[in-house]
């Protein structure tokens, strides 16, 4: 009888504790959502009351309605489509060779020692600084934009992939060797899956860089795309339209990182 009493109160205590924990979690969620909303409200208020110049900082509601109007005319979707095609093609154009070369560099020390000075020499150069040369070589068409993105994505991915392979715990290499893995099996069973976590970090980084690069590249030498929308509207002093471009970049950046995070949990369920 008394035993049950004690048990009961113990449950009570834990129940209270659990409820507190849930309340704390709710608070955290609320804080996460509240900061962007707070900034938007403040912005709206300051802009509407004229405390900040509404020509430079148009209220968010105006930006949203501008987005809606631009969407209605259909032209906006053209720009989005152009930018997305450039990003996706350029991204693949950079990531695929980067993974191949990175794996080779990780697996074979001679290749690593031979190629790493080249990688180190080119890596610090901002891809945009190479844009003139890229334009000379590849012309002013779509392909040169894809190449620009590809180059900027290439370096973080190649470095992370190589590091991913070389950092595989020595004991797994011993296991593979002891159990008679040949080169092909070693590649598919040890090197590739073992380097995947670090490789995906590199791809995540590359994704962010790709977005930065395309917008800047479209500002400099293009007549379409989201970067172009921003630049042209700025020049024409159509600032709400310019902000629409910024909102779109923010949205796609978030979307891409969500996609890659989803890919991460799909590809490395063992982490």
């Amino acid at each position, binding site marked *: 009888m008394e035993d049950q009493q004690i048990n009961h109160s113990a449950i009570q205590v834990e129940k209270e504790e659990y409820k507190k924990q849930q309340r704390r979690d709710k608070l955290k969620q609320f804080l996460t959502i509240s900061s962007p909303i707070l900034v938007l409200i403040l912005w709206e208020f300051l802009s509407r009351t004229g405390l900040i110049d509404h020509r430079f900082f148009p209220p968010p509601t105006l930006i949203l309605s501008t987005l809606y109007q631009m969407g209605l005319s259909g032209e906006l979707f053209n720009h989005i489509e152009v930018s997305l095609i450039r990003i996706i093609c350029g991204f693949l154009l950079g990531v695929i060779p980067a993974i191949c070369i990175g794996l080779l560099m990780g697996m074979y020390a001679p290749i690593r020692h031979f190629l790493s000075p080249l990688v180190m020499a080119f890596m610090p150069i901002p891809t945009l600084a190479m844009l003139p040369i890229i334009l000379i070589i590849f012309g002013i068409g779509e392909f040169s934009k894809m190449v620009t993105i590809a180059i900027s994505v290439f370096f973080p991915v190649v470095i992370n992939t190589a590091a991913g392979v070389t950092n595989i715990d020595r004991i797994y290499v011993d296991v593979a060797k002891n159990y*008679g*893995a040949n080169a092909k099996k070693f590649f598919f069973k040890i090197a590739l899956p073992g380097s995947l976590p670090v490789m995906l970090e590199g791809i995540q980084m590359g994704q962010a860089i790709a977005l930065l690069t395309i917008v800047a590249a479209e500002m400099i030498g293009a007549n379409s795309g989201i970067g172009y929308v921003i630049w042209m509207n700025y020049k024409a002093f159509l600032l709400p339209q310019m902000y629409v471009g910024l909102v779109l970049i923010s949205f796609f950046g978030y979307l891409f990182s969500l996609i890659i995070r989803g890919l991460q949990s799909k590809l490395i*369920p063992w982490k």
Partner: protein
Amino acid sequence: MPNTKIEITDLTKVFFKRSERVEALKDISLEIEDGEFVCILGPSGCGKTTLLRILADLETPSTGSFQIHPSSPDRPLQSMVFQERGVIPWMTVEENVAFGLKMRNVPRKISKERTQYYLEKVGLEKFAKLYPKELSGGMKQRVSIARAFANDPEILLMDEPFAALDEQNKFILQEELLNIWQETKKTVLFITHSIDEAMLLSDRILLMSAQPGQIVKEKNIKLPRPRTMEDVRSNEELAHEFVDIWQHLQTEVQGSRAK
């Protein structure tokens, strides 16, 4: 006369570190019979792991040679039971156990059967589809043991497989290992620094000295099988042997410290 399974002749291994020269193994010669369970016991840094790694083809001897006599051409010569962190994290328990078979292109059906058999043997059939991160240390070590036995090698090499486990798990796994071993009667070379473990498991204990690593003493353990830890502890003769081995290790450790 029983067949010799492993033959090691004048094996020497020297390591160079800058200008330093370490004689890890010196003139090791020994024979191990088919079906024998041999423990190599020695202080840490005595080169026992090096000897095992040479037999496992992960290291080459400086001079001398060794031979593992095959009984059938489609059997691998040796498989190693690695420490628990040798379980590959990106493969499920099942895939880990089947690893050796897959590497040797054993037909799917046989591979599946054998994997299943050893999973049951080590009590992990319920965990077949899980990744190692979800297993405890003892369960991971069971995966490592099952992987080696499933590969069905001529000899098994074990490098302090239970060193990282807690005492309770260690006893359980030692007995499980003995059960599986008694069924397959494989030749085993087992490295340890635990005297109890060596006396429980082995037919013969080889005592090693440190730097240069040499085999300095040999002890046959005649305790009838199946054995339990209680048998080992209550046996008068083994208690005597324990003290003897203990003293040997003591002087070895102190000797290498004095150097």
